[in-house]
Structures are given as C-alpha cells and as structure tokens.
C-alpha cells in the first residue's frame, strides 16, 4: 500500500534556520518541498559562498570515495557513520585528499611494477634460453654478445650465414642456436670486441636485427642485462607485497575517517540543498515538506522539545495540497516486500492510486508455478533460493531474488503435484506418481481452459481495481471500467451456457445484458470503447501463454527422460538427459519470469495502474545503500 502523507510547515526566526535544518536531518523523515512563495516570503538566495561550498563538499565526497574504492573498502566498517561538526569535516577533508593521493601513488606504483613484470615475462623464454651461456661468458673480458630471434623456417639459412661469418673473419666467433617455446629460434653470437662492428653489419644486411631489450636495460650489454632482468623478476613480487602492506596500513589508518568524511560531506550537501528550498523574510523562515502522516505529530513534539516555542510547526489541511506532487512510499508486509522490486521496475504509482505489490506477490508466483509446474524443478529452485539467501546480505539484490524464488518454488512444487510431474514423466514412470488434476502433456484443452480461466480472474481483478482507483477522481471512467468488467462477465456466462457447462437458460439473459451494456459503454467512454473492450478480451486470451509455456516445459522434460534410454551407453544417455534437464530448467526459469512479468505489466497493470509518483527522499543523514555496499 501507499503510505498516507502529511504536508507540514515549519516557521521560525531566520537566525535559527540552520539549527532547524540540523534537527530535521536528525529526525530524518521530512522531505523538504519547494518553499512557499507568498507576499513577503522569498526563496532563499544562493550566494557565491554556497556555490563554492557545494563544490568543496562534492570534492570531499569524490576524494573519500576514490580512496575507499582504492583501499578495497566495500562495506562500511562502522554500522552507522556518526554526524560530524563543521571543524571536524575540514580535518576529514584534508585526510580524504591525503588518502586519495596516497591511494593514487600506490596504484601507480603497482601498475608500474606489474607492467615491468609483464614486459620482462615476455622475454622469459629468451632469458631461460640464453642465461646458462651468458653466465659462462660473463667472466670473460673483451667479449661481446649479440642475440637475434629468427623464424624456425630460416634455420638452414642462418646456420649457413654463421658458418660463413666464422670462416671469413679472422677472429674467433661462436654462434649457438636455441629453440624457443614459441617455435622460433634465438641465435646467440659471441665474439671478441674487435669483431663486433663487422658481425653486426653482416647481421643487419641479412635483416636479422638484434633483440630489443626493455628500455631500462638498453644501456647494459646483453650479458649484463639478462641477469639483471632475472633479478628484477625476483624482486618485483617482494615490492608488490610491500605495496600491499602499505595499502593495508593506509586502510587501517584512514578507513574510519574516510567513512566519516563521506557521510559528513553528504549530510552537509543535503542541508545546503534543503536550505535552497526554504523561503525567508528579513527575519523569519518557512519550510514546507512531506512526512508520513503517522510521524507528523512526532515531528511537532521533537521540534518543540529541541528548539522551544520560537519554532512553530503546523500540519496543512489536505485541501491545501490536494493535486500537488506528493512523494510516494510503498509499505507492504514482509512476505510481499520483495515483489516491490517488480513494481519499482515501472514508474512509481501516483500518490492516492493503488499499490499493486500485494497482487503481484500472489499472482506472480502462481503464474510462474503454473508454467514450470514440476516437483523436481521446484525443489532445485528452492535449494538455489536457500543457497542465495545464505550468501547474501539483508536488503541486497541477491536477497530479494532469493526471497522471490521461495514462493515461486512453493507454487512450482504445488502445481507439480496437481499435474503429477517430477522431472517430466520421470515420477510417473518410476514412482507411480499420478496427476491430481490432469496430465498437461495429454490434456491440452483442459490446460488451456485453466490458463484462460486464470486470465479472466486476473484481468477481471484488474478491471475491478480500475473501478476503485477511478471512483474518486474520475467517476465517469469508473463507470466505464465497471461496464467493461460486467460485459466480460456476461460474455463468459454466455459462452459457458452455449457450451452447456451452465444451464442453457443463462444464454439469452446474458446476450440481452450484453446488448444493453454495449451502448452504455460507448456513451460513457466514447467511440474508442469497443476497441478497448476487444483489447481486454485479447488480454484474457493472452493468458494462453501459461498453457503454451507449460506444455513446452513438460515436453522438453519428457524428451530429456527419453534421451537416457535412446543412446547406446547408459552413462552417456544419463549425462545427455541431465544436460537437457539443465537446459530445460534454465529456460523454465527465464521464460516464465519474463512472461509472468509481461502478463502483469501489460494485461493486469493496464487496467488500473496510474504511474507518475515521485520517490520519497527525506532530509536525513547519509547512509551507504545496501546495493553500494554489497550485492
């Protein structure tokens, strides 16, 4: 249901405005509306100081959030960050700036080390191949090394080139070819210093350039660079571990302060925004806002106790604010609350209209259960829901999904019992399970009738809710909705009488009633009414999808069971059957969810739902949202 709201006006001396806003923030239930503009009252003007302060606060929030994210603080350590004073906020702002730069420095160092390690790792293969040889010659003075990577296909040509080099040169040149894991070859040429220029020229002419080492090792020779690179590979993990320790130390030092900074800056920003909505005279202020009807009295008592008689509070009469944009708060029993998520996926219902959550909470699991309808799948769904419930935080999206899965699983099991399904026909074949109502795989007509019957009930309920919703504001349209609902009922009666489900005597009165109702509908709702009425009949027929999806689900399950015996090997057949059941289960979760939602949003909500409500955002102390702290 939608909570009843009261419009409250707070009046007091201008000097106490900031103090009043602070008390209202502590109270946490008043949404400050745009200030009243009447003779003598003017909206609060925003000074350059206010604009600068807003910018500073936004910067504090950004710094603190950046630092918290960088330190990996996902959930606030303190349950509730305590409010902070202005002077403390200045200190916390400095802390946030310092923590931000510290986190940024740590992140830069970490990125640099990781990059360096990745770069050296790219040479790892080469280093492993050359290291033993270079180690041997590292003690020989006046010796130069030259490494070249060549494709494996050019091995013969390179060997020929090397032997020619050794023969032509009067110096002793040694060349070794080492295979790399990539399939290429590394050619290491060791030569006296005197021969280096000649050899390098020959290799360059043969288009065999020397291996290019990372930039920080460019200055060193190959025989010096390789051990240095190997040493860096051992040092980098130690340096990274040190950075991780530094980060932990910074987190220990700053987390509480950063959380306070975040909360304090958000609070101060909220007060500034509320201040901008106040109206003032030269000596007094006026604040108007929305609070739940039940808390209005509490607010009056609180302000009187905290600020004395100089600040007055009054509740405005409903006539004064009817038609205004009242914020909407949905409140539902605990069992229904998870289904508010489906309602919130649409624009919120307008204040004074109907909150469809209780109806969604009943019909969504029912439709879902009718479509999946399998004891086995229901048990698996319940187990998944329990698992998700255990590994989720209260108020998180995962918890909401788990709480929706519970009733869906219950209805799936219940409908599975009614239709005698346990993993398709597995229960019937092995355990002798029999349907209580009918077998969906056989009785397509009965299944269709159940689906259409449910559609009649659901759409009929929507039409009745439409009458109730429109009765106060648009009585003419309410009559139109009522006539539509009656016409649906007459058509059903006529059909049942024609099919001899009901006594034949019902047919003529039903048709006469239809003929009387039709012109009334056109007179009340206009020429478009017959089209809308036909759309309502189409909406009811749309519930045939419940039967279609249900039949598809059971058929797939039966095919999965047949697979177990269709393949030569029993184990392979069993695996195929399990895989097919898994696929069917996945489809069975997704399909019914989307279609049950669609039946609600299009067929059911279309009859009464009035979107356009604004969310309720009271002036309160900032709290990290569950979605931000944990999914």
């Amino acid at each position, binding site marked *: 249901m939608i909570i009843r709201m009261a419009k409250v006006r707070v009046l007091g001396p201008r000097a106490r405005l900031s103090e009043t806003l602070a008390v209202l923030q502590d109270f946490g239930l008043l949404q400050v509306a745009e200030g009243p503009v009447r003779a003598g009252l003017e909206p609060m003007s925003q000074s350059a100081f206010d604009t600068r302060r807003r910018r500073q606060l936004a910067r504090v929030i950004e710094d603190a959030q950046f630092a918290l994210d960088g330190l990996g603080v996902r959930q606030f350590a303190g349950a509730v960050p305590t409010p902070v004073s202005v002077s403390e906020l200045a200190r916390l702002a400095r802390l946030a700036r310092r923590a931000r730069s510290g986190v940024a420095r740590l992140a830069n160092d970490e990125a640099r080390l990781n990059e360096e390690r990745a770069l050296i790792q790219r040479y790892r293969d080469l280093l492993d191949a050359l290291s033993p040889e270079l180690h041997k010659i590292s003690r020989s003075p006046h010796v130069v090394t030259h490494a070249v990577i060549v494709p494996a296909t050019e091995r013969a040509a390179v060997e020929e080139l090397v032997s020619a080099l050794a023969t032509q040169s009067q110096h002793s040149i040694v060349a070794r070819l080492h295979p790399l894991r990539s399939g290429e070859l590394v050619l290491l040429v060791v030569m006296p210093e005197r021969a280096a220029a000649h050899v390098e020229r020959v290799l360059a002419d043969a288009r065999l350039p020397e291996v290019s080492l990372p930039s920080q090792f460019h200055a060193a020779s190959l025989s010096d660079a390789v051990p240095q690179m190997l040493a860096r590979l051992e040092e980098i993990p130690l340096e990274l571990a040190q950075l991780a320790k530094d980060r932990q130390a910074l987190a220990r030092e700053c987390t509480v302060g950063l959380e306070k900074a975040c909360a304090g800056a958000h609070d101060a920003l909220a007060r500034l925004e509320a201040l901008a909505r106040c109206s003032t005279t030269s000596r007094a202020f006026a604040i108007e806002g929305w609070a739940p009807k039940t808390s209005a009295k509490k607010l009056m008592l609180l302000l009187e106790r905290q600020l004395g008689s100089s600040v007055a509070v009054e509740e405005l009469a409903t006539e004064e604010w009817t038609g205004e944009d009242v914020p909407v708060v949905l409140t539902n029993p605990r069992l229904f609350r998870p289904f508010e998520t489906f309602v919130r996926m649409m624009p919120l219902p307008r204040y004074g209209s109907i909150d469809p959550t209780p109806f969604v909470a009943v019909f969504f699991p029912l439709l879902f259960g009718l479509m999946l309808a399998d004891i086995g799948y229901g048990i698996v769904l319940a187990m998944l829901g329990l698992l998700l419930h255990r590994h989720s935080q209260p108020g998180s999206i995962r918890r909401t999904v788990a709480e929706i899965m519970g009733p869906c699983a219950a209805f799936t099991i219940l409908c599975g019992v009614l239709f005698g399904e346990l993993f398709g026909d597995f229960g019937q074949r092995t355990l002798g399970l029999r349907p209580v109502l009918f077998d969906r795989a056989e009785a397509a007509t009965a299944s269709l009738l159940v689906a259409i019957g449910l559609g009649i009930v659901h759409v009929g309920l929507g039409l009745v809710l439409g009458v109730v919703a429109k009765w106060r504001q648009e009585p003419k349209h309410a009559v139109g909705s009522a006539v539509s609902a009656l016409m649906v009922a007459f058509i059903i009666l006529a059909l049942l009488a024609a099919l001899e489900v009901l006594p034949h005597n019902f047919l003529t009165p039903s048709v006469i009633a239809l003929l009387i109702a039709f012109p009334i509908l056109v007179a009340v709702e206009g020429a478009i009414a017959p089209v809308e009425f036909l759309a309502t009949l189409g909406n009811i027929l*749309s519930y*045939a999808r419940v039967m*279609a999806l249900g039949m598809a689900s059971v058929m797939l399950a039966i095919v999965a069971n047949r697979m177990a015996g269709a393949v030569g090997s029993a184990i392979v057949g069993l695996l195929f059957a399990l895989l097919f059941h898994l696929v069917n289960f996945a489809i069975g979760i997704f399909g019914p969810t989307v279609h049950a*939602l*669609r039946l609600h949003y299009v067929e059911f909500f279309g009859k009464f739902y009035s979107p356009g409500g604004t969310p309720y955002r009271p002036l309160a102390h900032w709290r990290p949202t569950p979605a931000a702290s944990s999914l």
Partner: protein
Amino acid sequence: MTTWWIPVAAAACLALSAIATAWAQSRIGAAGAAALAEKPELSATVVILVAIPETMTILGFVVAMMLILRA
C-alpha cells in the same frame, strides 16, 4: 477422408505466426537496445515491448494445438 492438410495447416499456423513475431521483435529489439543505451532505466518498458508480439506465436500455437487435437 484424407486429413493430410491438418498437420500442414497446424504447422503453417505456428510457422507464420512465429515469423511475424520474429520480424516484429527484431524491429522492437533493435529500437529497444538503442533506447536502453541512452536510458537504462527503461529496461522494464523495453522488456514489455519486446514481449508484446509473442502473443501472436502463443495464439498460433494454441490454434495449431486445437487443429491437431480435433483431427
């Protein structure tokens, strides 16, 4: 009396409605994806819009089933 046309009619019933749905969904899906890129909060509306043409296939399936069952 030969009843070969009954399964053919049932198949045509389902196939034609499925083709029509696929064509409609391809248009709506493309437009919906473009809308979501700019306004992610429209996800519920887009799901509804994409699911609307499925009614055609569902009704095609129901009619096909009725044809088969009456045969």
